[in-house]
C-alpha cells in the first residue's frame, strides 16, 4: 500500500450514538490530561525512546501531541494533526530521531489512553466494546497520519541530502590556469552522468580551460550508457576547444569501452592521474624542471 493510500483511509463515520460516546471519551481524556500525559512520558522514558531529547523537551512535546491527539479525536479531522506532525518532524529529524521512535511514542499514547478507557468502562463489557469500536479506528488513523507525516518529511530530507552529496562529490578543480581536473567517484547513473557532463562543459567555459583531466580511478563500474556519456563529454569538450585526457580506466571499464565499440582514436587516455596531469602540462606548454640541486648562484655564496 502506498503512503497516500494509507493516508486516504478516512475515519469511519459515526452514528449519533457513536458520536455521543466519542464526546464522552474526549471529555474523559481532557479531564485526566495531566495524569495521562505524565504516564505517557514515563512510558516513553522507560522504553528509551527519543533518547536524543531531554525529559523537559519530551514533556513539552508530549503536551502538544496529547492536546492535538485529543483534538483530532474530538473533531474527527486530521488536518491540524497533519500540520502538527509535519512541524514536529521538521524539528526532530535534524536531532536524529528515528522512524521507529515516532511510531513507538504514538502507539504508546494510543495504549495509555486505551488502558485508561478500559479502567473506566471495564465493568460493562457491552459499553467497553462500543468504546473501543469508536476509539480504535480513530486512534489508528491518527497513528498512521503521524507516521506517514514523519516518513514523508524524512524522505524529503534524504532527497535533499543526496542532492547535496552529489554536488559535493564531483568538484571540478582548477589546478593550474587553463587546466581542470574532474575526479569522478562512486556509482554513476545516466542521469548523474548527464549532470556531470553539463557541469564540466560550463566549467570549461567559465575557467577558459584548455585541457581537462577526467580521472575515473574512483569509478568501479560503468555501464554502456554511462560510457557513452563519457564519450559525448570528450566530443563536446573538443567542440568547445578543450582537450580531455581520461585517466584511471580500470580493466573492467576498458572492457566495456571496447565492447560498445568506442572509436579509441578520439580518446586520449593515460594510465594514472599523475601521468594525466603531466600530459596536460605538456599540452599547455609547461615544462617541469626539478629544483633538487641549488641554483649555481647559491653555490657561490
Amino acid at each position, binding site marked *: 500500500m502506498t503512503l497516500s493510500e494509507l493516508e486516504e483511509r478516512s475515519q469511519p463515520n459515526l452514528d449519533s450514538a457513536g458520536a455521543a460516546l466519542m464526546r464522552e471519551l474526549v471529555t474523559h481524556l481532557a479531564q485526566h490530561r495531566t495524569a495521562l500525559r505524565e504516564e505517557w512520558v514515563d512510558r516513553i522514558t522507560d522504553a528509551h525512546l527519543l533518547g536524543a531529547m531531554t525529559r523537559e523537551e519530551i514533556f513539552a512535546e508530549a503536551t502538544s501531541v496529547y492536546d492535538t491527539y485529543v483534538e483530532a479525536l474530538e473533531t474527527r479531522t486530521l488536518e491540524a494533526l497533519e500540520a502538527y506532525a509535519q512541524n514536529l518532524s521538521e524539528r526532530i529529524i535534524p536531532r536524529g530521531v528515528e522512524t521507529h521512535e515516532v511510531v513507538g511514542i504514538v502507539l504508546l499514547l494510543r495504549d495509555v489512553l486505551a488502558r485508561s478507557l478500559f479502567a473506566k468502562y471495564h465493568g460493562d463489557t457491552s459499553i467497553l466494546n462500543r468504546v473501543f469500536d469508536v476509539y480504535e479506528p480513530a486512534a489508528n488513523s491518527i497513528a498512521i497520519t503521524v507516521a506517514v507525516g514523519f516518513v514523508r518529511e524524512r524522505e524529503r530530507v534524504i532527497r535533499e541530502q543526496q542532492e547535496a552529496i552529489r554536488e559535493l562529490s564531483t568538484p571540478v578543480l582548477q589546478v593550474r590556469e587553463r587546466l581542470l581536473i574532474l575526479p569522478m567517484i562512486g556509482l554513476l547513473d545516466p542521469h548523474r552522468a548527464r549532470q556531470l*557532463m*553539463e557541469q564540466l*562543459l*560550463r566549467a*570549461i*567555459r567559465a575557467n*577558459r*580551460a*584548455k585541457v581537462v583531466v577526467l580521472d575515473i580511478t574512483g569509478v568501479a563500474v560503468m555501464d554502456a550508457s554511462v560510457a557513452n556519456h563519457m564519450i*559525448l563529454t570528450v*566530443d*563536446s*569538450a*573538443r*567542440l*568547445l*576547444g*578543450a582537450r580531455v585526457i581520461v585517466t584511471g580506466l580500470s580493466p573492467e571499464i576498458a572492457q566495456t569501452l571496447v565492447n560498445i565499440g568506442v572509436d579509441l582514436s578520439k580518446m586520449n587516455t593515460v594510465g594514472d592521474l599523475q601521468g594525466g596531469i603531466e600530459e596536460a602540462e605538456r599540452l599547455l606548454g609547461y615544462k617541469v624542471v626539478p629544483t633538487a640541486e641549488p641554483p649555481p648562484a647559491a653555490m657561490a655564496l
Partner: protein
Amino acid sequence: MQVPILKQGPYLIATIQAALTDSDIVQLRDALVDQVVRHRARGVIIDVTALDVMDSFATGTLRDIAQMVRLRGAETVIVGIQPDVALAMVQMGLVLEGVTTTLDLEESLAYFQHKHNVLGRS
C-alpha cells in the same frame, strides 16, 4: 542577416550575431571562400558564440567552409560553441571532425599566431 567579415592582419574574422537561416550560412560560405584569396588570408575565424542551435545544415556548411578554405590555402577555426549547443551536436552525431575549434576569439588568434610562428621559424 548578413554576417560581417573583418580583416585583421592575415586573418578573416566572421562574427555571427544572431540566428541564421540556411541561406545566410550559404552566403557566409561563399563570401569567405571568395575573400580568403582576395585578401591573401592565412586563417579564417568564425565566431558562433551567438548561435543557440547548430543543426546538421549549419554544421555541414561550417565543415564545407573549412574544407573549401583549406583548398584555397588557409585554415579555419570555429570559436565559441556554447556548452548546450555542443551537447546537442554530439548527441546528433555532428562532431565537426577535421575542424579546429577554440573557446573564443582570443584563443583562436593565439592558436594561429603560435602555429604561424612555429612554421615561420622552421
